[in-house]
């Protein structure tokens, strides 16, 4: 079977991709195999584990359930880009400080979910954080260190914004 391709244009971490994209190829496969961005991982390839997460137009998506062609006209950000832009800096520091990872395979996806929490759920309780990260599988930690790390970033940002008021 020869590959059916379609033309697509999108950006990945700010760089333009202008290419013929196999229509059946998933976004995470395209990022890993064609662009060498191996920071997004393949855990289950059916949308449960969350290791493949990337951002498309600012929203976290499963890279294994999104076709590469669906990125046409959109902006894609990966763990590599979000590290470079320092958007994840505070969370990465908190994850290291709290030992909120072990093997690190889930971390790329987990950090992206955490970033969404810090953006859209600034007042999340521990229980709510647990619920919000329940789409990301971590086999190594007991999740508690991850909750602690995210909570610590929320507490810092709340106390900062609180000071302004």
């Amino acid at each position: 079977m020869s590959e059916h391709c379609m033309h697509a244009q999108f950006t990945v971490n700010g760089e333009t991709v202008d290419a013929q994209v196999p229509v059946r190829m998933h976004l995470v496969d395209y990022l890993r195999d064609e662009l060498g961005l191996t920071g997004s991982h393949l855990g289950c390839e059916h949308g449960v584990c969350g290791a493949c997460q990337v951002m498309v137009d600012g929203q976290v998506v499963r890279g294994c359930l999104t076709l590469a062609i669906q990125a046409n006209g959109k902006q894609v950000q990966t763990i590599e880009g979000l590290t470079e832009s320092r958007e994840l800096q505070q969370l990465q520091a908190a994850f290291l400080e709290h030992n909120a990872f072990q093997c690190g395979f889930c971390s790329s996806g987990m950090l992206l979910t955490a970033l969404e929490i810090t953006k859209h759920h600034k007042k999340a309780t521990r229980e709510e954080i647990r619920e919000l990260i329940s789409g990301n599988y971590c086999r190594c930690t007991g999740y508690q260190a991850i909750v602690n790390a995210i909570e610590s970033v929320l507490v810092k940002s709340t106390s900062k914004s609180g000071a302004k008021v």
Partner: protein
Amino acid sequence: MNAPHELPLQAEVVATQENYVGQSVPRSGAKKLLEGRGTYLDDLRLPRLVHVVYFRSPHAHAVIKQLDLSQARKQPGVVAVFDGHEVAKFCTPWVGVLGHLKGIRSAPQYAIAPERACWQGEAVAAIVAQTRRQAEDALDHVLVDWDLLPVVTDMEASLAGNVVIHPDLGDNKCFSRELITENFEAEFAKADVVVEKVYEFSRHTGVTNEPRGILADYNPAENLLTVYQGTQTPNMMQDIFSRHLGIPESNVRVICKDVGGSFGIKVHVYPDEMATAAISVMLKRPVKFSADRIESFLTDIHAREHKVKIKLACTHQGDIIAFDMNDLTGIGPYSVYPRTSGIEGNQVVNLTGGPYKHKHYKAKLDVVFTNKNVTCQYRAVGHPIAMAITEGIVDEAARKIGMDPAEFRRRNLIADDAYPYTFPSGVKFEKLSHHQCLDQLMTLMDYKGLRQEQANLRAKGIYRGIGLAAMIEVTNPSPAFYGVGGARISAQDGATIRLDPAGMVNVLVSVTEQGQGTEAVFTQIAATAVGVKVENVRVITGDTAITPYGGGTWASRGAGIGGEAVLQAGKVLRKHILDVAAAILKVESATLDLVNGVVVDKLSGQEQMPLSEVGRVAYFRPDTLPMNFQSELTVTRHYTPREYGFTFTNGIQASYVEVDTETGFVKLLKHWCVEDCGTIINPMLVDEQIRGGIVQGIGGAMFEECMYSEDGQLLNGSMADYLVPMAGEMPDMVIGHVQTPTKTSELGAKGVGEAGTAGAPGAVMNAINDALAPLNANVSVQPFTPQRVLAALGKI
């Protein structure tokens, strides 16, 4: 017991020396994993790389009448196709037995089954293509004519032997063991009270987030095989590739980059990985295999399918007299190579009743073949079974005589001053701390307060339960575990430590890193032993061409064995550095010390020179040193535990749950664990290691089950159908510690990787049954799904 500050990790008069052992230092070298810069197996790419996928048997037991690969060979991008006969010419079969498991048997197992598939998922053909997609596309063009054979999936049916999987063996028994202490029957008969119960455990699996993978790269010019593999045991695999592919051991190099979780899954020999290495030799080019999730569920080792009948005999006063247990376990069609599938059941025999001081014990074990995926050693090997049946029946006994379960345990746990102690199964404990752990747990969880809260809520129709589970855990195995049985698995580990010219300390260790923080704790030990800051230490693991020979990571042995080797090597390097500095300064080396990477005068503390100066002179200007002086700034040391068969750790866990008696759902409210892993090197890492272990134990107790149909079809081979613990269902966990360092090593670390998993299922089970007790309901089949809880309540 040594307090941590008494440990001789520092030279004398080093009050200013920073001791990293015992400190929660953030993991060195792990930041890359948070930035997407790790290198997991599937991230590797080599020139001329091709991809292999396997055609797997859709049947649990069937003979290959005809295998037609001709159409698959013609598909776009396909480089080669192979059947089992072709691969067998390059890779000899194996039999998973060990000499010290008397009578254990298995059948020869091939990299690719040449004639018969014995479980659904066993590989029967290989397709190699330029891309994985092309190889997977070609799978649809493999044609097989099967002759279906009778299937046996049930353990008891297997034992009965109406269907025999390997006719040459005569029946389905892989291994049996019986153990009975002297005068057992007479002593058992003296009991006032006997409680008896059957516990069942469903098979589950590791579900590492990163699936298994291997990239084999054969270079015919040098007859050199380089294997990149997500493995816990590079040297064991080096030996196995060498022997089964017929390549000299020194020509096989196994490299283990970052590993996305292992938990025992990645410590075994897998047929598809052996086949991939063989195919690389056959094609003389790099070949990669990366399992996808369904392949992981079908072929990653499963574990813990057991049915155990256990009896406890005790007095009216609550003194345990004896345990009597009978374990039946089903392991799939082959005993897994080279560690065997007899070890898990054997550990259940060794460890049942482990925390208690009874003198009498009887055990019987039957390990049988079935037509399901193979089972083998998975995190906490046998402990979750042994601890759950022990702690379950202990609670039954306490209930029967009307004694509080904590009090019952206090009465029966081995006294803290009774060591060294030989347990009825024959295992020896150097020094455990059950009572200290129990006391600390009672305080930590406010046991009395919690019991009060439970009683108050029960009056309101809310059913909460408290469950306790004392535990012991095997760690740091001596050669008695595998080596004496003929397995070429090293019980020894080594560390090579080197001062580089710029003053950095480079450490090579044979223990591997799977994310648990091995490299970080070695960094802390090395920094402390040498006398430098952690940021000046680099640790390298996982490369048989450069690291010392050793056993790798399994049985909670990394810190205790590898750590001791690092400590000893580091101490000698420190001395050698001071010898060089003394030669430069023309003083006695005894007058010098090394503190935070600076050579100082021992008495005044005055700085003499940085390590970069020691390195500069030693490496580039040794002409300025005395004629008869040779610096030795690379040191290797090894360590093997030998005094005891195992180092044992101990601890106790508690679970607090609420059972919804209408829906059968169990909510885990909180979990506690007090653990004694000896010297703690990094408390933050230890705590989350225990928590992760607890969650994995909870997974087996509450959610995880590889469900098979009667004809051997796996019914839930996706993560949507096979449930794993996610953050939302998990409770906060409180961890406490007692530290009883082992005196068999200077470091005193006993290991902690599996303790959480060992005790959690028993604690959760006991909590659920405590909640259900007023309703005269009781669960004993793991996982405790809502369906099973409702069935216990008689509601379905």
